[in-house]
């Protein structure tokens, strides 16, 4: 390739100075009215050019920056060679879900944060490249269905089909075990399906992951609520050798302030589930309705808040507000999501906290009383604690409110599984080396263990659990001696 020759002749310093690739995107004015994905993805030429910006550091920091330690320089080298499928497979050695993680990982807090280029220039666009190679492999139907290992005769139940469950299921199926997934909702994918909107993660990608599992021989039971239909103990009694619990953080937090049960006040889970899982944006062709008024306030500063406010704009809101009690720098959302929200006209109210919701006689929210905040001393999270400024109260006219201040763990499984220990937040406690819970043969991972975290951490926990489950069901020592001192992704994040 002549392009490559050009790059080949450059010094490392010259390559570092190359401009970081810009992701082509839908125009903000157009995309505000549709649910199609915002970024179009890189072209092969763009990907190859970007791959040359990686200078193959002797001591690459990016691998350590990745919660599952993807061999980033190795996959980027394959991109440079034009071996996109090889690059995708390189990532899949440690991360089963590159098309998803390339889209939803907070790269600026992980691999790209520590990229050596970042000190002086812009970091290599690792996320864009990850997404590109995974899309290339999928779009060209080059996803290989590996031959699974010889059947072991062992059966494993996977409860929940989010990123943790999907990863565990794939890894165990590859190792020759019989895997059965139990999902409470009617579609597989967990938060990837009900939570993350189409414009950020097309559902076809999640469907492709599910399809891959089915091709590996994984059996799927949807609309099956473990704890209600069969308990974890009943699954074990029915002949499963192990059970993995990856039920996520599925209990919405509310503010516990006056007027929260007024009509028009949603949890982000409900708002996004209606729009995403139930496709309420297509009402009345789809039966599930969703209400979006003119003035929509979304409380919170995370990705879910950004997803909610951008969904509201697409559903016709005139004003979409983010109400966040800290300042811009503390917002946990991905930079790209904040940037996209700004481009689409979302109005940010930082250092603002709601005090109460005010409604009319029919029980509909009409206003929200807020108070301005200032940042005080750092709190336990290390972030400066927001303190209310007395007398700064004001009201904002709103007819829809979406509360996106995080989730707690759903108690359904802990409640119905005697002997399953949880911490004071209701998260299941595990041995972090094996992800085994206080119950023998019962493993857990993802948000149900960590509390609301990221897709990549859940997928990483799934990898660790799969290895441990494999050893457990075959009666091998639970910890591989050679890997004894290795740190698990969960520990690293913790």
């Amino acid at each position, binding site marked *: 390739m002549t392009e490559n020759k050009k790059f080949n002749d450059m010094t490392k310093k010259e390559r570092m100075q190359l401009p970081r690739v810009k992701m082509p995107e839908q125009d903000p004015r157009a995309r505000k009215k549709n649910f199609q994905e915002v970024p179009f993805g890189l072209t092969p030429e763009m990907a190859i050019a970007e791959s040359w910006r990686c200078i193959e550091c002797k001591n690459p920091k990016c691998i350590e920056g990745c919660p599952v330690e993807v061999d980033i320089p190795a996959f980027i080298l394959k991109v440079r060679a034009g071996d996109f499928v090889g690059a995708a497979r390189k990532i899949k050695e440690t991360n089963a879900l590159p098309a998803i993680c390339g889209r939803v990982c907070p790269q600026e807090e992980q691999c790209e944060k520590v990229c050596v280029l970042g000190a002086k220039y812009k970091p290599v666009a690792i996320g864009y490249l990850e997404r590109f190679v995974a899309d290339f492999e999928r779009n060209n139907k080059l996803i290989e269905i590996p031959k699974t290992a010889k059947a072991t005769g062992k059966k494993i139940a996977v409860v929940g089909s989010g990123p943790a469950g999907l990863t565990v299921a794939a890894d165990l199926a590859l190792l020759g075990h019989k895997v059965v997934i139990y999902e409470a909702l009617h579609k597989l994918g967990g938060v990837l399906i009900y939570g993350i909107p189409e414009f950020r993660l097309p559902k076809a990608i999640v469907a492709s992951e599910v399809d891959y599992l089915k091709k590996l021989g994984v059996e799927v039971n949807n609309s099956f609520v473990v704890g*209600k239909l069969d308990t974890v103990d009943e699954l074990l009694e029915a002949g499963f050798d192990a059970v993995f619990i990856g039920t996520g953080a599925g209990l919405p937090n509310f503010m516990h302030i006056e007027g929260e049960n007024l009509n028009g006040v949603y949890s982000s889970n409900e708002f996004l589930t209606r729009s995403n899982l139930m496709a309420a944006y297509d009402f009345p062709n789809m*039966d599930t309705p969703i209400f979006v008024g003119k003035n929509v306030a979304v409380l919170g500063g995370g990705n879910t808040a950004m997803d909610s406010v951008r969904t509201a704009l697409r559903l016709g809101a005139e004003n979409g507000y983010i109400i966040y009690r800290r300042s811009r720098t503390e917002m946990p959302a991905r930079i790209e999501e904040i940037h996209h929200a700004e481009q689409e006209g979302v109005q940010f109210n930082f250092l603002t906290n709601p005090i109460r919701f005010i409604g009319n006689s029919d029980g509909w929210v009409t206003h929200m009383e807020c108070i301005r905040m200032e940042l005080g001393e750092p709190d336990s999270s290390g972030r400066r604690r927001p303190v209310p400024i007395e007398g700064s109260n004001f009201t904002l006219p709103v007819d829809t409110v979406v509360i996106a201040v995080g989730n707690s763990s759903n108690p359904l499984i802990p409640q119905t599984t005697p002997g399953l220990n949880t911490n004071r937040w209701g998260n299941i406690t595990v041995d972090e080396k094996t992800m085994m819970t206080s119950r023998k043969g019962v493993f857990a991972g993802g948000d149900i263990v960590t509390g609301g975290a990221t897709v990549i951490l859940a997928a990483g926990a799934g990898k660790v659990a799969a290895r441990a489950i494999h050893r457990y069901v075959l009666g091998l020592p639970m910890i591989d001696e050679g890997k004894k001192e290795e740190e698990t992704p969960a520990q690293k994040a913790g």
Partner: protein
Amino acid sequence: MFEILDKKELCEKVHQFRIKAPHLVSKAKAGQFVILRKDEAGERIPMSIGGLDRKNGILTVVIQEVGKTSAAMNRMKKGDFFADVVGPLGLPSHVEKFGHCVCIGGGVGIPPIYPIAQALKDTGNKVTSIIGARTKSLLIFEEELAFASHELKISTDDGSFGTHGFVTTILQQMIDGGDKIDMVIAIGPVPMMKAVVNTTREPKIKTYVSLNPIMVDGTGMCGACRVTVGGKTKFACVDGPDFDGHEVDFDEMTKRQKMYHRYEKLAYDKFLENDHCRLAKAAAELKNKTT
């Protein structure tokens, strides 16, 4: 996929379905509910359990046509399939030896009171059931309730059958007559449940009501079904559906149930319009054939 084994019209716009769901039926207890989804475009709607045929693994639900989804479901036939029947969801009704239990059902709240009455009776309670409807032709599940209770009392708003008045008319008569009542459970329209708890508040009779607010997932994930009970927010899907009736904020619940009225009407009108077109077309075809 869940097959409809048989189906019959109990009264105008009210249909009884018997659905094959052996696994669910083997686990379900009186007072729990299920979520039904008709097809891929369908919404998830919570539905009370109106009977559990454990021997044959058959679930009974009774659906009243109030909007598009219920109308479309009521046009399903024997041999058709529901895309999803999820459950059993929620906590079972509190069943223990109370003594004398009064089970009250109104409208389509009558079928779900039936398995509860049966469970209470099987636990050794004396069970009196009171069922009510606007008029005689709308009374349903009399035989079932008669079977599951020691005594069955009936009221109609217009006096066309049984006591002229409401279920609370009979309940008040029992209280005034010195009947010892240890527990009441009421399922029906919100105004009826509200009237029942107002009747039992002063004599301080423990009263449970079963709430049926709007839900999406039914497993505690979305919070659509939040209700205020004793000043605290509860999720009907996981904390209920039964609650202490004297603590429930019924006014808030009534308002919350109207959240999607505008949309429900839109969808229902559109459905009925299409329905009329279908019927007219079918009639025209029939006429063409015969002439």
